[in-house]
């Protein structure tokens, strides 16, 4: 069955508006009538990805494909890449600056939260080239 697709550009310059794409996606999923638990898991996963792209990669893009039985979120950036994925997956590990931490981010929960709230998280990353995350949330 064909998916319903949504595309979002994530602005890397404006930290204060980070989360806009996630809020927009949440609104669309709610309009489509998905259960609140599914919407919540998608929102958390996408928000973490969005924040990561703003903090580390100067923005990027998000593509959300909605199927009756699953939601696939693909986040892509042309940032610095993740040198050690295993380390980045550990809760509490963060390379964020003091300034970012003062804003309430950089707890090292981004990737772990994405993994926790989705059925699958696939990370394709290359240092100096960028990162592509594919997450699947089952309905």
């Amino acid at each position: 069955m064909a998916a319903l697709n949504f595309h979002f550009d994530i602005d890397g310059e404006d930290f204060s508006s980070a989360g806009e794409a996630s809020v927009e996606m949440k609104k669309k999923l709610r309009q489509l009538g998905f259960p609140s638990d599914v919407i919540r898991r998608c929102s958390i996963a996408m928000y973490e990805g969005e924040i990561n792209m703003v903090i580390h990669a100067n923005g990027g893009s998000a593509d959300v494909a909605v199927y009756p039985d699953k939601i696939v979120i693909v986040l892509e950036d042309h940032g610095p890449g993740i040198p050690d994925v295993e380390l980045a997956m550990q809760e509490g590990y963060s390379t964020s600056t003091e300034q970012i931490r003062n804003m309430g981010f950089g707890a090292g929960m981004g990737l772990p939260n994405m993994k926790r709230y989705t059925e699958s998280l696939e990370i394709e990353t290359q240092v100096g080239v960028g990162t592509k995350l594919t997450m699947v949330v089952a309905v």
Partner: protein
Amino acid sequence: MTVQELAQQLSLEPICQAEPDREVTGGYAGDLLSWVMGRAQSGDAWITIMSNNNVIAVATLTDAALVILAENVLPDPGVAQLAERKGINLYRSSEPVFSLCAKVAALL
């Protein structure tokens, strides 16, 4: 208990009363936004000392019933307007996080 009733009981100062009749079903306290994002529940009174725009995004995504800025924290410029646009109940209090938590817990 509704947001408005809770606000009256705790003598909260309103910053944005978007939906005062909303039911409060629980509470959460925290300032690390990713942590809050993953753990706060829909209907919670979220108590925090964070005051930037991202608080509104997290409140929207977690579906918190209201946000209480504790310890006399003032919202950053533009936060009140953003709360209004997003329909988020936003209040502030001079009380510390700990005593606000104790009071919210006693009331619910």
